[in-house]
C-alpha cells in the first residue's frame, strides 16, 4: 500500500465514487492530478468554526466531520488515536509526525468548507476541465464527484507538511479497522 504513489490513491478514491463507474482510468488520473494540484494551492480563509471532540468514530467509520449548520468540525478522538498508533506500528512517523492526524483532520474539513464558496467552486470546476455542455466556444463545466475529497486531502497534506497524502493513512486505517472487526 505504501508503495503506491499518492496520485494512485487519489485515482482509486475517484474510481470508487459513484457516477464514475465506467470512466476511463486516464481521465480519472487527469482529474486526480488536477484536484491534487488545486488542493495544494488552496489558501482557505481562517473561519471561526467550533471544534468538537467526540468518540465513536471507529464504529461509524469516521475520522472527522464538517457540518455547515451550525458550522462545526467534529473530530473523532478514538479514530485519531488509532491512526496515531497505526503510524507508529507501520514506522510512518517520518511522514506523519506526532499530532499530525488531528491537525490534518482540521485542515481537511477546513478545505471542504472553503470549497463551498461559489467563486472557489467555479475555479475548481475550471481546473478539472470536465465539460457538461458546449455551445460553440462557450462551455459549461461539470461537477466531478469525489474531486473535492481529493482536493481536501491534498490541502491537508500540504498545510500540515506531511510526507505522504493522508489518503495513505486513510486506506491503511480502513484496512486495519476492517480486519480487526472481522477477527
Amino acid at each position: 500500500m505504501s508503495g503506491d504513489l499518492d496520485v494512485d490513491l487519489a485515482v482509486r478514491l475517484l474510481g470508487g465514487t459513484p457516477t464514475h463507474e465506467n470512466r476511463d482510468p486516464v481521465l480519472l488520473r487527469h482529474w486526480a492530478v488536477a484536484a491534487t494540484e488545486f488542493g495544494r494551492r488552496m489558501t482557505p480563509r481562517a473561519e471561526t468554526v467550533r471544534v468538537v471532540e467526540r468518540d465513536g468514530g471507529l464504529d461509524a467509520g469516521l475520522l472527522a466531520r464538517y457540518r455547515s449548520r451550525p458550522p462545526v468540525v467534529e473530530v473523532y478522538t478514538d479514530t485519531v488515536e488509532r491512526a496515531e498508533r497505526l503510524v507508529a506500528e507501520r514506522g510512518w512517523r517520518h511522514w506523519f509526525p506526532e499530532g499530525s492526524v488531528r491537525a490534518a483532520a482540521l485542515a481537511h474539513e477546513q478545505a471542504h468548507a472553503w470549497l463551498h464558496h461559489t467563486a472557489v467552486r467555479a475555479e475548481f470546476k475550471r481546473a478539472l476541465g470536465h465539460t457538461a455542455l458546449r455551445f460553440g466556444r462557450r462551455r459549461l463545466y461539470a461537477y466531478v464527484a469525489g474531486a473535492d475529497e481529493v482536493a481536501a486531502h491534498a490541502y491537508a497534506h500540504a498545510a500540515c507538511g506531511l510526507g505522504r497524502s493522508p489518503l495513505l493513512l486513510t486506506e491503511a486505517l480502513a484496512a486495519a479497522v476492517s480486519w480487526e472487526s472481522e477477527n
Partner: protein
Amino acid sequence: MGVVILLVMAAGVAAMLTRKLPTAFALVLLAVVIAFLADAPLTGKGSVLDTVLQEGAPALAATMIAILLGSWLGKLLEETGIAGTLVRKIVEFGGDRPVFVALGVLAVSAVVGTVTGSAPAAMLAGLIGIPAMIAVGIPKVTAAGTVLMGIAVGVPFELPVWQFFSTALDLPVDTVRGFMVKLFPFALVAAVAYVLVESRRRGVEHTWSLKSVRARPARGDRRRRLGDAPWYALLTPAVPLTLALGLDVAIIPSLLGGVLYALVTTTRPREMNRRLLRTLYGGFEVAAPPITLFVAIGILLAAVKLPGAVDALQPLVKSVSPQNTVLFILVFTLLVPLCLFRGPLNVFGLGAGIAGVLVATGIYPAVAVLGMTASYNQVFGVSDPTSTQTVWSAQYAGVSPHQVMLRTLPYVWAVAFGGLCVTAFTEL
C-alpha cells in the same frame, strides 16, 4: 362473533409486528380463521377451500402481472444504464449545489416510482443517487429520505398500484386514476418541501470517512462497456405513463410499451432476445415478494367479504366509523401511525382486509375507501421502518430506518391529511 374476528385480526397484527410470522403467511392464516369464524363451509359456494383459497389467491392476478411488468421494466432501466445515466447527469450539472442534486435525485426517484415500487425502486434511484448526494454534502438521513419521498411522488402514477386498487376495491381504473391525480400535488409539494426545508435546517456535511477509500463492488463488465444510455432512452419511464394517462391505454399494454421502448432505444437487434429474456427472468425475482403478498391479500379479501364475516363485522365497524366530514378527516388523520410497523392500516397487510370490510359492509363508498387507503399508502411507502424500501435506503445511506421515519413522518402525515381532506369533501 364480530368481536372475536377483530381479536383474531389483532393477534395477526401482533404476529406480524413481532415477526413471529411473515406478513403473507399471517394474512393467509387470518383469512382461514376468519372464514371458519364466519361459519363458512369447508367446500362449495362461500367456502373456506373453494371461495377463500381457490378464488381468493388469483383474485389480484391483474395486479400481479402489472407488478411483474413493472419489475421487468425496472430491470431494463437498471441493465441499460437509464436510471444511472439520469442520476449521473444530474450530479454533473448541479453537483456543486447540493440542493439541486437532491431535487434532481428526487425527480429521478419519482420517475422510477411510476414504474416500479418497493426496494427495487429505491435501488434503481438510490444505488448511485444516495452516495452521489452524500458525496456533494447532503446529510445521510436527508439523502435516504429524498429517495423515499421521491418514490412516493411517483406512486400516485404507478400503474400496478392503480391496478391493485381497481381490483381490490372493485372500482374502474378511471376512478382510481381520478383520485391519484388529486393526491399527486400533495405528494409533490411535501417532497419538494422536505428537500428544501431539510437542506436549510441541516446544511451540508462532509466527512473524512474510512469507507470512502474502499473500492465499491464492480457493477458488471456489461455496464462498463455500455456507458451512458442515449438521451432519447431516458424518456422510457414517461412512455407507460403517457400511454395510460394521456392516451387511455390499458395498464398492461402501457407497461409493455415501456418495455419495448427501453429495448429498441438501447439494444442492438441481435441482442434483443437475450436481453428481453434475461431482464424478464430478473423481473420475476424482483416481483416475487410483492406477488406473494398479493396472493395473500386476495385470500384475505375473499374471507372478509364472506356473508358471515360481513354480517358479524358490519354493526361493530359502523358504530366506530365517523360519518361526519370533519370527524372523518380528524379521526383518520390521527390514525395515520397505525399504518406503520406493519400496523392494522397498512394497505399491503391487514389494511387491505379492513378496506375490504369497509367496502363489503357498505359503511363508506368504495371511492372513499380508495382515498383513505391511498393516503395511508403514501405514509407507509416512505416512513414505515419495516418496509423494504425504507430499510434498504436507510441502511445503504448508513443510518437507521427509525431516523428516516422520524425525519420524513411530518411531511407524509401532511400528505395523508391532504388526501383525506380531498376524500372527505369529494367522496363522502
